[in-house]
């Protein structure tokens, strides 16, 4: 008890209520041997991020398989917080991630969780090295469902399906949705790789969402050459297609028009 001057603040994240209640029971059992405090519970990654905005936590027990956004992705977004909590993943099955967890000393618990193992994991949580983004990205097989940016101490989630285009600026990438723009600190070429199924490069510095393309037009330059431009749903701005990428007009135009 004297080991920790402060009690450990814990958050449970699982989409299944019984799974949360099971961990709650076990935490009560643990509370007998060292001080901990259950800060709250969340049924999804989004709920977790909202909860962490209000109150910082020390450790998050994070389920991997969840609807909308899986635990591995949630952990990536969480790292954008000023003081990200430690993560202990929970999972019911031996998925491929477990090997990677072992390799990179990422903490995880197999469901059904044993009191003993939870106790051990919580005891050493303050000693373990924090999660690293590159490790998480390496483990996560699928493209993310959301991008995230940090704004005034909180993490804003942007659903990938709502993004119209991504444009590289000097230091940042501009993420444009119907509602507004965000500035993202990631490289455009990595984004292009990750979202190659949904986005297409129209220009050296611009990726547009295939789903939002309404059509292609030819615009006459002032006395110069005519060039292709893309129209996106809900956006007045027209984006130029570079000469090198003109083949996409043919490839996508057929499906669009």
């Amino acid at each position: 008890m004297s080991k920790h001057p402060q009690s450990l603040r814990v958050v449970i994240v699982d989409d299944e209520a019984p799974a949360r209640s099971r961990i709650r029971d076990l935490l009560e059992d643990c509370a007998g041997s060292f001080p901990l405090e259950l800060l709250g519970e969340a049924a999804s990654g989004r709920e977790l991020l909202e909860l962490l905005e209000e109150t910082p936590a020390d450790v998050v027990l994070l389920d991997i398989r969840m609807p909308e956004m899986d635990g591995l992705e949630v952990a990536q977004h969480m790292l954008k917080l000023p003081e990200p909590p430690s993560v202990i993943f929970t999972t019911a099955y031996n998925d491929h991630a477990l090997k990677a967890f072992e390799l990179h000393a990422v903490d995880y618990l197999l469901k059904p969780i044993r009191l003993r193992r939870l106790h051990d994991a919580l005891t050493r949580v303050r000693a373990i090295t924090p999660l690293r983004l590159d490790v998480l990205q390496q483990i996560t097989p699928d493209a993310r469902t959301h991008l995230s940016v940090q704004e005034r101490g909180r993490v804003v989630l942007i659903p990938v399906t709502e993004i119209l285009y991504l444009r590289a600026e000097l230091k940042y990438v501009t993420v444009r949705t119907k509602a507004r723009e965000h500035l993202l600190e990631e490289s455009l070429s990595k984004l292009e790789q990750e979202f190659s199924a949904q986005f297409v490069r129209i220009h050296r510095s611009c990726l547009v969402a295939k789903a939002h393309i309404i059509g292609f037009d030819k615009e006459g330059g002032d006395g110069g050459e005519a060039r292709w431009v893309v129209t996106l749903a809900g956006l007045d701005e027209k984006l130029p297609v570079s000469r090198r990428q003109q083949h996409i007009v043919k490839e996508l135009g057929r499906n669009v028009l």
Partner: protein
Amino acid sequence: MTTLSACSGVIFGLNQPMASINQNRHPNLLPNFRNLGVMLRVLVIVIAMTVVAAALKSSNWYATLNQWLGISALAQPIVILSLLLLGVADRWLHKLDYPFAVAVIVAVELGIVTMVVTATSSVFIPDAPGLARSWFFTAVATLLVLAYFNLRSRMLSPALTEARLQALQARIRPHFLFNSINAVLSLVRNEPRRAETALEDLADLFRVLMADNRDLVPLEREVELCRQYLGLEALRLGDRLRVDWQVEKMPGDAMVPPLLLQPLLENAVYHGIEPSMEPGVISIHIFSDRDRVQMSLRNPYRQQGSHHIGNKMALANIRERLSLHFDAEARLQTRSSDGQYEVRITLPYVKEGK
């Protein structure tokens, strides 16, 4: 653990039928004459035989065609009459000893041939065979057809064992077991009675999963199992899982392969309910339509992720078992539209003891 029980299942499965079933009766060696697939096979075999016979008797294609028309004019009424008669007598024939049943069938065929040949003797058919030759050809053809079905059923019985094994492997995702146990553990302290029921359901489910699943079971038992399965899933998914049962017109005594619906429901939960935080409905509609049983399972379909391999495996597995049991008479179709995924199954309405 699974591997171990699967292995012991093989040994058990191979020994037992030899000892107990085959000596008393021959349920599989004689085909089911009421099965559409069997009838079609008989027709195709006989037509093939007549074509060969016609080709042997003639020197060019034109003559072959002529010969064949002549032979068919005799053979087709015989086949059709035979199929009718055997269809009617099917149940009785299956009660007989196999050699005796074969003798009866040959005798019946000879009778039919005698009838047809004498009846058509007044009609001119070029090069019509005499009665003695007709008898000879009929006996040979009948024995060949029966030998074919005998061989086929011998070949299929290991396939059925195989199908059972496959069923064992393809069914129940391991994560269902662990998630369920986890859910039950959460109930133990606060709702011990619900925990008891859940464990009983889990035990029932696994009893069926590990059983010898070659024999058909009544549909109502399969449906009961599905209810237990969905009950367990509801435990952990809560409000997200909604089930709409439309089974008032279900023929509960129809015999179906065990674990016909449960794996489909498991897919429905996995692909339709789990990927969303919003509640989703799985609807199950079963009814009888004259001599068929119709089933339809629908679930929301979310275009997300890449877990289609599991679904395809389960479908292929069920299709294979359906065709082993019902040949061409059962059908399984899938389609997805408007965010809904639907599996439709059509089976012949067969009751117990057949």
